[in-house]
């Protein structure tokens, strides 16, 4: 039985692991693996949680009140809730410097996708023209992942941007606000489609509208933001649990991989990991190795390995991420209406803006606010807090936010490398990013179109509330070790096999040669399944 060592436990890692386990490989997964705390009062809905918990403030705001969003110049409305703090915890010894980029790293069991919002948007054929394989391969993998995790969706106007694939589940019930937006869209779609090239529809989300194995369908507890207590909402740790049922799977948490060692023929011999709590490094041997720790972490391991063996400090260009714009809005027809917290909380609607170049598609996710904290919004209103409290409570049901995503391309000036310093046990990661020329024009055009589309549906974007998030905020990192038909230096094959190290596979976003304006996670899982199917 061939053996594989996999680094990381995020969406790419667990789906790659499950696929190769099903093929009979012996798999060892190395991971820092900070784990999720047990769900509190799993049967309670959002309101009951406030009533029944002995200390609800501690749950919602955290032990150190880190969930309080104080006024900040960056205008971030929301952070990771305290119940998901473990997702962004860092082990000692991991350091980085970033210019023009605000990166997030996760060392959690399940990776950063333990705190994702569930968007499952398949890339289409036009968006993978730089990828060295056909769309049909990816389509099969999307269907496979959808069957594993449960993805809801509908064949509506957005299907022109997100191809339909097999195993889609029927959508969840819409909340009142989202239903109103959809009905207004149906009345005005001719104008929106023709004049703005703007389309609305149901989003594709990794949650269950019917039972799937041991997981129960969504029961509308309204606790999505704080962590679904019933596993109806998918996170990669669910697939990790499936992997653990295989007798030839070994999960080794508590280890941070620093580098791999290779021989004169460039074959990787072992992966070296340090205990996250401190201690002597350990080496793990196998026939094949897979880096799936997230694009930046995998890149760091790759760079560190070359540096330790050869002394060469390589800079890998092409780093990408989706620029995001947060556009809060008020639906005038919903003002004064009661707000029902017992509903699905993340985006249920999406919007797509067509472009002459299909790769220039702009994607928006529309979240109607029901159980999100109101104090960040109240604090940003230009009035005293008592007046703000009156306004937000009476406008609660009318509030929404569009998260607008723009595509990104590989540019050599956006690179990842290691710091030139001596004495450090482990090198500091350097990240450098600058937006492409003309980004301001693209941002303005997208903002203007979204604003006009919302206005047409009876919604206004309050002045001063719009926020262009810093690069790095979307956590859709890609492009540093791209798949390529040509055998260039520091590239990978169509099966994500390193062109430098023949028994090394890079199974995460690092290998994507283009980043469409879509949440990348579903494509990461599908690509991992595709690689396991083609190369193993």
């Amino acid at each position, binding site marked *: 039985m061939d053996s594989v060592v996999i680094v990381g436990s995020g969406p790419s890692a667990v789906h790659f692991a499950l696929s190769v386990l099903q093929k009979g490989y012996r798999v060892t997964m190395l991971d820092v693996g900070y784990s999720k705390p047990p769900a509190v009062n799993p049967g309670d809905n959002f309101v009951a949680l406030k009533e029944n918990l002995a200390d609800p403030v501690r749950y919602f705001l955290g032990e150190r009140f880190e969930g309080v969003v104080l006024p900040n110049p960056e205008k971030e409305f929301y952070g990771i809730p305290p119940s998901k703090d473990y997702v962004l915890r860092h082990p000692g010894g991991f350091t980085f410097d970033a210019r023009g980029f605000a990166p997030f790293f996760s060392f959690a069991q399940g990776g950063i996708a333990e705190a994702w919002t569930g968007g499952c948007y398949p890339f289409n054929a036009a968006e993978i023209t730089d990828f060295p394989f056909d769309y049909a391969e990816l389509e099969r993998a999307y269907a496979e992942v959808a069957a594993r995790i449960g993805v809801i969706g509908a064949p509506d106007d957005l299907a022109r941007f997100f191809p339909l694939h097999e195993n889609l589940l029927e959508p969840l019930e819409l909340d009142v606000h989202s239903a109103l937006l959809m009905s207004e869209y149906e009345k005005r779609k001719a104008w929106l489609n023709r004049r703005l090239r703007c389309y609305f529809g149901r989003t594709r989300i990794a949650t269950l509208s019917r039972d799937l194995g041991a997981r129960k369908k969504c029961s509308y507890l309204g606790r999505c933001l704080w962590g679904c207590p019933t596993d109806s909402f998918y996170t990669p740790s669910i697939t990790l649990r499936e992997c653990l049922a295989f007798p030839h799977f070994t999960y080794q948490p508590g280890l941070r991989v620093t580098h791999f060692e290779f021989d004169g023929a460039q074959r990787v011999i072992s992966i070296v990991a340090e205990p996250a709590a401190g201690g002597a490094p350990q080496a793990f041997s196998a026939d094949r190795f897979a880096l799936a720790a997230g694009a930046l972490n995998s890149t760091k391991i790759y760079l560190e390995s070359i540096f330790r063996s050869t002394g060469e400090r390589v800079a890998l260009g092409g780093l990408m991420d989706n620029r995001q714009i947060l556009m809060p809005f008020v639906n005038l027809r919903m003002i004064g209406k009661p707000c029902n917290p017992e509903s699905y909380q993340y985006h249920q609607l999406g919007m797509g803006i067509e472009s002459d170049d299909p790769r220039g598609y702009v994607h928006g996710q529309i979240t109607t606010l029901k159980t999100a904290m109101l104090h960040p919004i109240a604090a940003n209103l230009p009035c005293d807090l008592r007046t703000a409290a009156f306004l937000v*409570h009476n406008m609660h049901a009318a509030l929404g936010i569009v998260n607008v995503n723009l595509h990104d391309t590989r540019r050599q000036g956006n690179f990842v490398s290691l710091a030139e310093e001596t004495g450090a046990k482990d090198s500091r990661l350097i990240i450098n990013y600058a937006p492409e020329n003309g980004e301001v024009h693209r941002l303005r055009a997208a903002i203007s179109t979204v604003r006009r589309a919302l206005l047409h549906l009876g919604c206004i974007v309050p002045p001063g509330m719009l926020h262009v998030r810093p690069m790095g905020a979307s956590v859709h990192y890609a492009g540093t070790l791209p798949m390529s038909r040509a055998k260039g230096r520091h590239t990978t094959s169509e099966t994500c096999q390193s062109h430098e190290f023949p028994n090394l596979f890079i199974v995460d976003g690092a290998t994507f040669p283009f980043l469409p304006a879509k949440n990348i996670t579903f494509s990461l899982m599908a690509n991992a399944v595709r690689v396991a199917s083609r190369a193993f």
Partner: protein
Amino acid sequence: MMPADAARLRRECEVFCRYLIGRAPGAYILEKYCEAHERSAEYSSPAAFDRVLLSFASRGPSFARLADSYACLFARYSSLRRKLILLFSILESASAQHGFSDAVDGSGQPVLFVKIVFRGVLFALRLALACVLFLPLRLVLGGSPPAARRGH
């Protein structure tokens, strides 16, 4: 925490709670407000103007509202504003019995719009008065430093 500090914080919380929700805080809210001050240095400020603003606001709910009318536009990072936002977040995290009532104004949209306009006019008047009081003081004492980025 020194007993004098605890007493000051409890008094502050009582005033701010009356300002925000129109009633005195329960024991649980008082406890959480004091606990936040013990666990984080975010709510104190060495700036002289911040201290004056806070001291003025702590005199009573009407004073708090007047000071907040100024702070919401011209002292957004002041300790007063931070304390009020902290209390707002505590009230919204607690059950309806302790914190905000989530009920909406049931008078219908036209009446609600009139109420919003009326509140807007009152705010503008309070703001004008607050500017007369605080702008000269700020010019003399200096402002609040902008907040450092809070990372997660």
